[in-house]
C-alpha cells in the first residue's frame, strides 16, 4: 500500500479547504472528548489518592453535626487503630465569597503525622504545633494566591463568627501530583479557644495497623458510640470522598451522554465529507478500475484517505488537549486536584478517530467497489 501513499496524499490535499475544515472539526470534537473524559479520570484519580489505610469517623446524622473531641482518646484505644487525630471544616471566606478553598482546623499534635504524603520540613511542623495562629497552605493554593511563609491570611468566618488572622508557617508539597493541595490547615486549638472551649470537632481521622481490617475497625468504632448522644459513622477515606461525588448526582451519565452527542455529531461531519469527496471522483474511480486496479485496491484507497483525515484530526485534537491542560495547570477553580489527560484518554480519542475513519470511509468505499465502469464513465458528476 505504501506505493500508493503519494496518490492518497495528493487526493487528500486536492480540496485543501475541505480537508482542513474536516480535520478541524475532528480536532475540536476530540479535544472536547478528551476534556470530558479527563473530568471522569481526574475524579477517579482523586479517589485513588485517598487512602484506604485511613478511616474517617463523623457524626452519623450528617457532616454538619460535630463530635466531642474527647472521642479521640477512646477511638485511639480501639484495637486496630494505630493513631487518631481530628479536623474541623472551617468554611471561611478569603476576601470574597468566590475565592473558595477548603480550610480545616486540625489537631496540631498528630494530624500532620497522619498525612505523610504532604511533605513539610520538621521546622515547619514544629512551628505549626507551637504557634496558635499558624497555618499551613497546600502548594497549589500557595501558587494561586502567592502565599509565602510569613504571610498573613485573613478569613471571615461563616460557621464560626468573626475575623480570623493566620500566619503561614509552611507550604505543603504533595508526594504525587494527583494529591489535592488546594487547602489551608490551621491550629485547631486556636478555634477551640476562641469558640469558648466548646470541645467539638468535625471528624476524626484514624490510621490503621492493617488496612485489610478496615471494615472490622470501622464497625468497632461505631459500636463504641452506638446509643450515645453522638452516634458515629466510620468509613474509609475513599468511601468518604466518594460520598461527596455521589452528592453531585449522576454526572458520569451526563458526561457520557455529552460525549456520545459530540462523537455522533463529528461522525456526521466526516461521513459527509468523505461521501462528498468520493462522489466528486466517481469518474476517476471508474478510470482506475478500467485501468485494471482491483476492487480491493480501490476500496483501500478510499478508506486510507478517510483514515488519514480522521487520524490527523485525532492526533491533533488529543495533542491539543494534552498541551492545553498540561501547560495551563487547569483545575476548574480547585475542583480537581489535577487535570491531566491520561494516556488512556489519548488512546480512546485515537480509537474514536480510527472508528470514524472506517465508518465514514466505508460507504464511499462500498460504492466504489460496486461501481459499474461504463455507468460511471457516463456519469457527469
Amino acid at each position, binding site marked *: 500500500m505504501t506505493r500508493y501513499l503519494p496518490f492518497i496524499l495528493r487526493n487528500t490535499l486536492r480540496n485543501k479547504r475541505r480537508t482542513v475544515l474536516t480535520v478541524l*472539526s*475532528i480536532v475540536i470534537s476530540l479535544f*472536547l472528548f478528551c476534556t470530558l473524559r479527563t473530568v471522569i479520570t481526574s475524579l477517579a484519580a482523586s479517589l485513588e489518592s485517598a487512602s484506604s489505610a485511613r478511616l474517617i469517623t463523623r457524626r452519623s446524622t450528617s457532616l454538619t453535626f460535630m463530635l466531642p473531641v474527647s472521642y479521640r482518646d477512646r477511638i485511639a484505644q480501639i484495637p486496630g487503630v494505630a493513631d487518631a487525630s481530628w479536623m474541623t471544616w472551617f468554611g471561611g471566606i478569603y476576601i470574597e*465569597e468566590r475565592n473558595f478553598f477548603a480550610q480545616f482546623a486540625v489537631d496540631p499534635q498528630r494530624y500532620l503525622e497522619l498525612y505523610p504524603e504532604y511533605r513539610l520540613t520538621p521546622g515547619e511542623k514544629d512551628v505549626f504545633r507551637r504557634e496558635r495562629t499558624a497555618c499551613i497552605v497546600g502548594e497549589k493554593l500557595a501558587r494561586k494566591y502567592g502565599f509565602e511563609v510569613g504571610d498573613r491570611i485573613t478569613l*471571615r468566618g*461563616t460557621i464560626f463568627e468573626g475575623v480570623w488572622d493566620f500566619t503561614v508557617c509552611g507550604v505543603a508539597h504533595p508526594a504525587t501530583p494527583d494529591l489535592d493541595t488546594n487547602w489551608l490547615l490551621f491550629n485547631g486549638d486556636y478555634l477551640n479557644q476562641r469558640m469558648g472551649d466548646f470541645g467539638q470537632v468535625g471528624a476524626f481521622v484514624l490510621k490503621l495497623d492493617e488496612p485489610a481490617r478496615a471494615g472490622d475497625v470501622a464497625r468497632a468504632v461505631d459500636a463504641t458510640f452506638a446509643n450515645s448522644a453522638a452516634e458515629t459513622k466510620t468509613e474509609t477515606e475513599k468511601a468518604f470522598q466518594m460520598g461527596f461525588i455521589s*452528592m453531585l448526582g449522576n454526572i458520569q451519565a451526563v458526561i457520557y451522554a455529552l460525549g456520545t452527542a459530540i462523537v455522533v455529531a463529528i461522525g456526521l461531519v466526516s461521513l*459527509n465529507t468523505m461521501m462528498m469527496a468520493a462522489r466528486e471522483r466517481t469518474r476517476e474511480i471508474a478510470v482506475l478500475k478500467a485501468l485494471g486496479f482491483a476492487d480491493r485496491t480501490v476500496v483501500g484507497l478510499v478508506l486510507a484517505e478517510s483514515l488519514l483525515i480522521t487520524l490527523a484530526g485525532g492526533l491533533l485534537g488529543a495533542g491539543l488537549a494534552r498541551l492545553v491542560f498540561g501547560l495551563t495547570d487547569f483545575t476548574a477553580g480547585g475542583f480537581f486536584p489535577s487535570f491531566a489527560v491520561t494516556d488512556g484518554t489519548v488512546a480512546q480519542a485515537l480509537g474514536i478517530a480510527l472508528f470514524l475513519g472506517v465508518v465514514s470511509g466505508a460507504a464511499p468505499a462500498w460504492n466504489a467497489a460496486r461501481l459499474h465502469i461504463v455507468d460511471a464513465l457516463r456519469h457527469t458528476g
Partner: protein
Amino acid sequence: MRLPLQYNLRNLVVRRTMTLMTAGGIALVVAVLVLTLALAHGFSATLVATGRADNAIVLRGGATSEMMSSLSRDSARIVAADPAVARGPDGEPLAQPEMVVLVNLLRRGDPGASSNVSVRGVDPQVFALRPDIRLREGRMLRPGMDEVLVGRKLDRRFEGCGLGETLRMGGRDWRVVGTFDAGGSGFDSEIWGDREAFLPAFDRVEYSSLTLRLTDPARLADLLARLEADPRVRAEPQIEREYYRLQSRQLADVIRALGLFLVAVMAAGAVFGALNTMYAAVGSRSREIATLLALGFPPRAILASFLVESVLLCLIGGVLGCLLALPVHGVSTGTTNWASFSEVAFEFRISPGILAIGLLASVALGLAGGYFPARAAARRTVSEALRAG
C-alpha cells in the same frame, strides 16, 4: 430581483443525504445547548420559586445560609415584636422561628449512595406563614410527636421518605405522617417536623432562622435599620425569595458556563461541517450560478440565496435539535446545591425562550457557515463559472 425560496428548498431536497447529515450535526449542537439551558433554568426556577416576596428571613449576621446561622430565643422574640412584622387574625405576629439541619440519607435504589437533605423544624402553624404550600397526603404533624412531613420530591429519591415509612434521624425514629406540595419549589426537597421535638433530638438550643411576614415588603429597610441599631441582637433580615435566589446563583452560573463552553466548542465543529456542505453546494452548482448570472440576477441575489439556503439547512437542524431535546422536559433530577450543601430535586425545564435561543443559535450557525461560500459564489463571473462546471 430575488431568487425564490422554492429554489433553495428544492436544492436541499435534491441533496438530501448531505442536507440530513449536516443538519444532524447542527441538531446535536442545538440539543446540547437547549438541554444545558433547561438544566440551569430548572435549577434556578426551583429555587427562585422558593419563598415569598412579602416574607423576610432573618439570619445571624454574617451567615450566608440557614445551615450556618443560629438565632437565640431572645433574638427571635425581639425581631418578632418589630412593628414591620404583620399580624395574624389572632393579633399575634406572623413570625416563626425555624431550625434547619442537614441529615445524610440513603438514596433509594442506589445502594451505598447518600446525600444531605434539609430537615426543617417548623411551627405548628407553618402553613399560615407559607400559604402556597399545602398538605398533599396524610395529615398534619401533631405537636411534640416523633412525626415528620416529607416534600413531594423526596419520597421516591430517599429511603424511608414514603408515607407511612419510618426515618431514623438524630438517634430517634420519625414516622412519615404526610407529604406536602410546595409547588415545585425548593421546599419540595425538605423534611419538616415539629420544631420543639427537633431541637432536643438534634442537640440544638438555638434556632437557625426566623421567617416573618412583612406588613409591606418596602419596610424591610426599616426593619434592617432597627435590628442593626439594636445591641441585643445580631440578626440580618432579607426577603425570603431573594435569599433563595442567591442560593441558586452560584450553581446555576456554573452549569450555564460549562454548558456554554461545550456548546461553543461543539458549534465551531458544526460550522466547519456547514461550511463544507455549502462550499460543495456552491462548487457543484457552478453552471447554475453562471446561468443565473447570465439571466441577469445580480451577484447580491446569489449571495442572499446561498445564505438563505445555509440558514434553512441549519434551521432544519435547529428544529430537529429542539425536537430531540423536548422529551427531556420535565425529567426530574437532583444535585447538591453548594450554597446550602443539601440536595435539591428539580426538573429540566424547556421554556419557549430556551427553544427560541436554540433556533437563533442554529440561524447564527447557518450565517457563519454560509457567508464565505455564498460570497465565493457571488464573486464568480459568468465565463469563469461556466468553465468550472
